[in-house]
């Protein structure tokens, strides 16, 4: 109750409560905002953005080339979008960056200002680079040398990895029209009960097995 009391008090103090005659339409308008807001959240599949599921990133078809190139890469087995594209130093930073990036993406997409070739901006590049190092640290730095050589770590990690590894993982050619047709679900994200035997074959084999048993 305390919350409502203070809110009401604030609204009255700043004369934000409409006069009696106006209250009804005002209430309706505010309700419309809330209702539409909820509807927009549902429509945009907003809850999915809290997860680490790569499918969330292809809610917008703009990311399809990135998604498809990733599903055809060796990173697909070990890293999701978020493993590389959001910071992992602490959970607040992770969601702050995710929200910032996500709102930027959403705005550009809504304004139809998306370029034919999307590129990571500077803040994003820093995040990606630190994530490369997060997993590949032992491949780029040597623990013994870090202990003995002053700037060994900087020397080994201050160049961006993709200066050389240009194909990783999205390929060299990136554009909205660089990939083929649809999104192919891959086994890694298939339901647990997915089977490699087609239904027709399964049922025909079951029929034969029951026949065998009844004749035994």
């Amino acid at each position, binding site marked *: 109750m305390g919350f409502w009391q203070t809110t009401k008090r604030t609204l009255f103090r700043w004369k934000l409560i409409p006069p009696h005659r106006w209250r009804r339409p005002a209430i309706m308008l505010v309700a419309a905002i809330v209702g539409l807001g909820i509807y927009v959240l549902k429509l945009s599949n907003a809850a999915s953005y809290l997860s680490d599921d790569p499918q969330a990133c292809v809610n917008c078809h703009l990311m399809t080339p990135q998604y498809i190139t990733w599903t055809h890469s060796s990173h697909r087995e070990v890293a999701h979008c978020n493993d590389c594209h959001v910071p992992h130093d602490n959970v607040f930073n992770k969601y702050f960056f995710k929200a910032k990036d996500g709102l930027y993406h959403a705005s550009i*997409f809504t304004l139809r200002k998306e370029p034919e070739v999307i590129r990571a901006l500077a803040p994003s590049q820093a995040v990606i680079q630190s994530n490369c190092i997060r997993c590949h640290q032992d491949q780029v730095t040597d623990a013994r040398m870090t202990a003995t050589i002053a700037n060994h770590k900087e020397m080994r990690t201050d160049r961006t990895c993709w200066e050389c590894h240009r194909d990783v993982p999205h390929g060299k*050619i990136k554009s909205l029209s660089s990939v*083929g047709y*649809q999104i192919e679900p891959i086994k890694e994200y298939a339901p647990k009960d997915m089977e490699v*035997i*087609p239904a027709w074959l399964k049922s025909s084999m079951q029929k034969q097995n029951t026949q065998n048993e009844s004749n035994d």
Partner: protein
Amino acid sequence: MKNWILFLITAVVVFLLAMLAYSIMDRKNEAKYAYQPKVEIGNIEPRDSIWGLNYPRQYQSYMKTKDTSFHSMYNTSGHVAVLEEDPELVILWAGYAFSKEYNQPKGHAHAVEDIRQILRTGGPMEPGEGPMPSTCWTCKSPDVPRLMKEIGVTEFYSKKWSDLGAEVINPIGCADCHNPETMNLTITRPALVEAFEAMGKDVNAASHQQMRSLVCAQCHVEYYFDKDAPDKKGAQYLTFPWKDGMDVESVESYYDKLDFADWVHPISKTRMLKAQHPDYELFSLGVHAKRGVSCADCHMPYKTEGGQKFTDHHIGSPLSNVENSCFVCHREKKEDLITDVYDRQRTIKKGSQNLMRLIAKAHIEAGKAWELGASEEQMKPIQEGIRHAQWRWDYAVASHGAAFHAPLPTSSIVTSGTSIIEESRLQLARLLADLGHNKPVEMPDFNDTEALQAYIGLDMEKERADKAQFLQEVVPKWLEEGKKREAGYSIEMISNE
């Protein structure tokens, strides 16, 4: 005044929110068409050209399996008559259709035309005629799972090869390995699922990497036609003999326990076994399999085109594509890698050629012993030796890639076959001497295929004439009927972009 402003701002916010909601809907609709495939691929669509509308890169590279220009030192993607290269084979397979014609394998795209043209399938002028059962179609076409679904698996195995000529017209293709809804790899041949069950394994538990080999293992394996499977009377039920293991000895004892024979050799009267391309079994014993490499890793390496990485579906010898297949792991000179392969193949071929000739001689010597009045009792151990030696020789050579896939196990198979056959020939020499023939048995000319075919009593001219008539009169009818059936299939176009 302030209230008015507030009211207006609120109204504008509602308006903007509604616009945003509309925009999201709009872009969602766009997504439905942005990366839209062209056609809806039906349940088991046997025509690759339809799949090709959605997957042009995979389809076009797969169509390159038509290409017959590649030759390596010992193998080829084109036409090579193996009976001409090694005429002794005619003696080894006397009484069996392989003595009529046997060629090096071509690409997948030739599967259906090759099985029609090969003399082994004869010239059936009417449905129900001819030497071969319908089971021979099993590995030739995506029409097979379609038929199995329509008429039932056992029913499919219970006909004659000539019964299904009009039904099976598309060579091996997309639907054999892919689930049309998800494009995931799938198993469409019951024999592999049943073989896994027999071994007490679950094929559904296979990882993606294993599936990249198992789809090949649906066909590139040793098999036999089980004629007395329970409840499958009259069917020639395709079965893989893996119950006790996949190595040459386990399969040999499996067949011995069943007292199974593919045919009885007319000269030595031996109950023979025919090994058919145990590629997956031998590959599994090799070092590449041990390191977790799959068939597709070398035979279908990744390729990049227009920025998209995809699996190259031009399935063939990795020797024609060393840079994309071997170089992924081996950073050596191309020539050195190829030399390594040829060294293994040369060494094993030397041994297997020698073994082949010894087996041919043994058959003829056994024939001589029968002629001189040997008893069944005396011949029994000799026949067993011939059966086992030829089984082992065949197991090693019928898998064309074995010398590379698993050089050590393959050479040990050849060695064991050689010692078995030499032991049998020793026994034969003693037996022949007892029967009063203490000198070398007269051999036919092992370098003349035609003469050997006449020697085992084949009328090749008739075989060829029957085949020519069949190709001229029957096959066009099959094709016409098949095309007519396919014209009736409905195709669901999604977009015409």
